[in-house]
């Protein structure tokens, strides 16, 4: 089979161009990811006392925290479930405020669940989108069994 580009010089130029494009794409994606995480962290920090009802979290566990909370989900135990909001302590030791809306799907191994099935100390996985108030608007809440 005949190679598409026969000239060595053109091959080098095309190779360099491909590498440059890949590097630029990685840079843009990296910047966007950092911007999203920083924005969520900033909103989360500014609204923390209001979101958590005045509580300031477990100071002891702060030493083991990840640098920033995840903007798109939280995986951990429910600390409180009131009205339409859940406070969940994630495995990264960040307490996140999760907003449950009418479009939130709540599921368990047995099938569909309701907000009433969410009890304190229940292990859950949440997937959603970050809001400007530092909350996570849940799209999916999956109840997990208690075994680790």
């Amino acid at each position: 089979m005949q190679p598409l580009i026969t000239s060595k010089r053109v091959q080098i130029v095309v190779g360099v161009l491909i590498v440059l494009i890949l590097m630029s794409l990685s840079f843009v994606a990296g910047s966007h990811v950092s911007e999203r995480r920083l924005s969520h962290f900033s909103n989360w920090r500014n609204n923390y006392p209001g979101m958590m009802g005045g509580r300031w979290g477990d100071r002891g566990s702060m030493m083991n925290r990840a640098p920033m909370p995840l903007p798109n989900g939280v995986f951990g135990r429910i600390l409180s479930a009131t009205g339409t909001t859940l406070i969940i302590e994630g495995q990264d030791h960040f307490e996140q405020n999760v907003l449950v809306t009418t479009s939130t799907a709540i599921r368990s191994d047995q099938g569909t669940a309701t907000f009433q099935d969410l009890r304190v100390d229940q292990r859950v996985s949440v997937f959603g989108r970050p809001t400007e108030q530092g909350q996570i608007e849940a799209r999916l809440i999956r109840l997990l069994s208690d075994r680790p």
Partner: protein
Amino acid sequence: MNERAFLKEHLAIPEAPAHLAHAITTRIEQVALRRIWMEVSLAALGALGVLSYVYASSSLLQQEIQESSFIQFTRLFVSDPDIFLSNIQESVWSFVETIPMQSILLGLGLSLCAVCFVGFVLRLRQVRHQFSLHLT
């Protein structure tokens, strides 16, 4: 046809004396073997370096993999793909944001070193075999 090709076609290739041909072949073999041994040693050193790093930080790496949100998102994606597919933009960002880069880079480094090491050892065997045919 250029001058070089013309000469190559019409002039007889001179035969080197046997002892000279042998000396040249031996010298070429020595240079080739030295180079390959250097490459093998570098690949082995690289693999050793990555392995010792993995060993030194194995508990940290294991914790990173076990507690990685990437794994949790993957589990959720497997159990509830409909939600993820209907929120495709958020899904893509959630995976991109949680990729365990350290583990992936270490894995790639280790694989690269292993592939290079095996490749160089095979080349070493091949060169030795070729020269042994010439020299006997």
